[in-house]
């Protein structure tokens, strides 16, 4: 390894002395150096490569030493539908300002536009990836940042499309300000430790906008997940912080704003869920704090399976959801307290801002729907309203203990 580095160093030095100054190599379609791969081989570790505008037909470009590669005015690297385009196998590599398109596609291999393989402290910034199988693929990396990239692809089938930003077995990655569209999962994490996913925009993906598996201790803040095939899924993880995200327009019979499965000790705070079929779906999750979220105009605000326990729904705004809470058991192991429910019809005689009658978020009608789905067409009818009212006064079918004892009278700001 040392030997090869020193050899390439010498070659690089020799070549640089032929015409490049200050360790910088310029690649251009009609210059002395016309291929990026060639420039990488020429460069010394820690060098700079500048790529002039133009189209470069190259794939499987390997970066095996610390380098900074910068594109001027988004030069195009066309992978000609073969293999991975750019592979980073060294620490401290920076790739900036490229348009990368046409990776290979395969059912066996995960070809990506940029693959970062067992490297540390990389920076992939301001790149545009177009018509790629996988976008940016991080495998066994440590630290490193993926920032302000745009990824788009056009395969509408779930089975044959790849993920936008794919993280596998990584530590401390930062995924910031990227836009992902038309991939399978916008951002996919598996065995990612302490990931920071902030300010990304993931929309119109075939499956999940964000897919989170076995990844403990991450944070994701200020992201927007819109119109994804199945919303966002966060599974088998603990100590995840989800704050100030926007989940909207995820429609379909198996589509969720946020799907939680086997999650523990996590916080969901300050998010907005708007017009999803199901805003929050929870299965086998426990010790979650769902606090101060706005849940507005969704089909079902919360669908909580009886396998979920000790979750705390506090100070959320439930506004004009077709159904507030759905559950599959007459028993309740979760806490709903101090939320604002726009469907609440109680009164507040002592004027302390808290309703004097408890609110029952599971409506009679939602139980009718579960038994006979066709009755959905009667939603919001006067007759159904009367039934609901009767059930609220004398609960028979709805869970006895699933109540908010302290419903707020006013929307929580």
């Amino acid at each position, binding site marked *: 390894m040392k030997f090869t580095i020193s050899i390439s160093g010498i070659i690089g030095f020799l070549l640089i002395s032929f015409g490049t100054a200050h360790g910088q190599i310029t690649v251009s379609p009609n210059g002395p150096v016309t291929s990026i791969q060639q420039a990488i081989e020429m460069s010394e570790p820690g060098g700079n490569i500048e790529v002039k505008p133009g189209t470069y037909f190259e794939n499987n470009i390997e970066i095996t030493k610390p380098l900074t590669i910068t594109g001027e005015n988004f030069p195009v690297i066309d992978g000609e539908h073969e293999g991975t385009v750019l592979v980073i196998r060294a620490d401290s590599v920076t790739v900036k300002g490229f348009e990368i398109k046409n990776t290979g596609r395969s059912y066996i291999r995960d070809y990506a536009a940029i693959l970062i393989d067992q490297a540390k402290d990389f920076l992939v910034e301001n790149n545009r990836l177009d018509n790629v199988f996988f976008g940016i693929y991080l495998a066994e990396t440590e630290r490193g940042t993926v920032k302000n990239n745009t990824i788009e692809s056009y395969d509408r089938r779930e089975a044959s499309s790849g993920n936008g930003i794919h993280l596998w077995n990584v530590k401390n990655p930062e995924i910031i300000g990227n836009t992902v569209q038309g991939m399978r999962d916008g951002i996919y994490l598996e065995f990612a430790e302490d990931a920071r996913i902030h300010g990304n925009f993931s929309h119109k993906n075939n499956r999940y906008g964000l897919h989170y598996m076995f990844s403990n201790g991450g944070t994701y803040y200020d992201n927007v997940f819109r119109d994804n095939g199945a919303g966002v899924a966060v599974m088998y993880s603990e100590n995840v912080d989800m704050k100030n995200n926007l989940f909207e327009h995820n429609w379909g*019979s198996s589509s969720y704003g946020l799907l939680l499965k086997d999650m523990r000790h996590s916080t969901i705070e300050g998010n907005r869920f708007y017009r999803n079929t199901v805003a929050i779906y929870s299965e086998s999750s426990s010790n979650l704090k769902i606090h101060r979220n706005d849940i507005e105009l969704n089909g*079902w605000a919360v669908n909580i399976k009886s396998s979920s326990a000790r979750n705390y729904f506090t100070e959320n705004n439930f506004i004009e959801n*077709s159904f507030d809470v759905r559950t599959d058991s007459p028993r309740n192991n979760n806490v709903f307290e101090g939320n604002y429910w*726009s469907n609440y019809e109680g009164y507040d005689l002592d004027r302390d801002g808290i309703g004097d009658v408890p609110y029952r978020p599971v409506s009679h009608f939602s139980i009718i729907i579960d038994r*006979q789905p066709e009755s959905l067409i*009667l*939603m*919001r009818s006067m*007759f159904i309203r009367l039934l609901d009212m009767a059930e609220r006064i004398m609960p028979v079918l709805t869970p006895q203990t699933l109540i908010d004892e302290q419903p707020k009278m006013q929307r929580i700001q």
Partner: protein
Amino acid sequence: MKSQTLHILSNEWKTLLRGKWVIGYGLIFLMLTDSLLRFGGGGAEALLSLSNVMLLFIPLVGMIYGILYIYQSREFVELLLTQPIDRKVLYWGLFLGISTPLMAAFIIGSMLPLGWHGILILDGSASAMVLGLGGILTLIFVSLGFVLGLKFYDDRIKGFGFTIVIWLFMAILYDGLVLMLVFTFGHYPLERFVIAVSMLNPIDLARIMVMLEFDISALMGYTGAVFSRFFGSNLGIFTAGGMLAIWLAVPTWLGLRVFKQKDF
């Protein structure tokens, strides 16, 4: 002929305004909408509450108003009938003369608060939908009231009785019957049937259109293919809209026929 209709129309409007009834009706909606927006929170919340009130009360008020008018202006109508005026012209003049101010009272009364709270701009399509549906329901039920008034011209108790029963049936009991049918025949594929049955009641039609605007995300959660196609595409809104138009035409035409043939 047109000028005659307009003449009757303007006369009607003047009488109604002098009666101040319509203004009060408009003011009720104005205060209701304003307080909903002031104390209830966001636009969607207020619009949904408004649409609930609209679905329940506009049919009742429309029908009562229609039938009351026929009974109260009996002398006036009979006097006009002695004049050389086409009965068709007279009918349109009378019908539009009382239904349009009622419609306008609702639309303007609700629109003003929606306007000054900025909801008209924020939720433009939803506001337009609620206001438009209220207007159409007014027309439908005033003409139903006319039909009942003309049918039971001399028996007022019967006329009012039928009005109340029809309202109760359409606004509340009908959905109960549908629910009962759904549960009785739950083992059969019912989607088409349920849609068809809902199309027969104008209040249900209006309710379905409100639902398509506000609950589409829940409707998409339903897995049945027929519902998905009906609610998921524009098919639902066009069918419901078309059926509402038919509902508008049939009672009006019926009223006209009865009015033309009636021996006063």
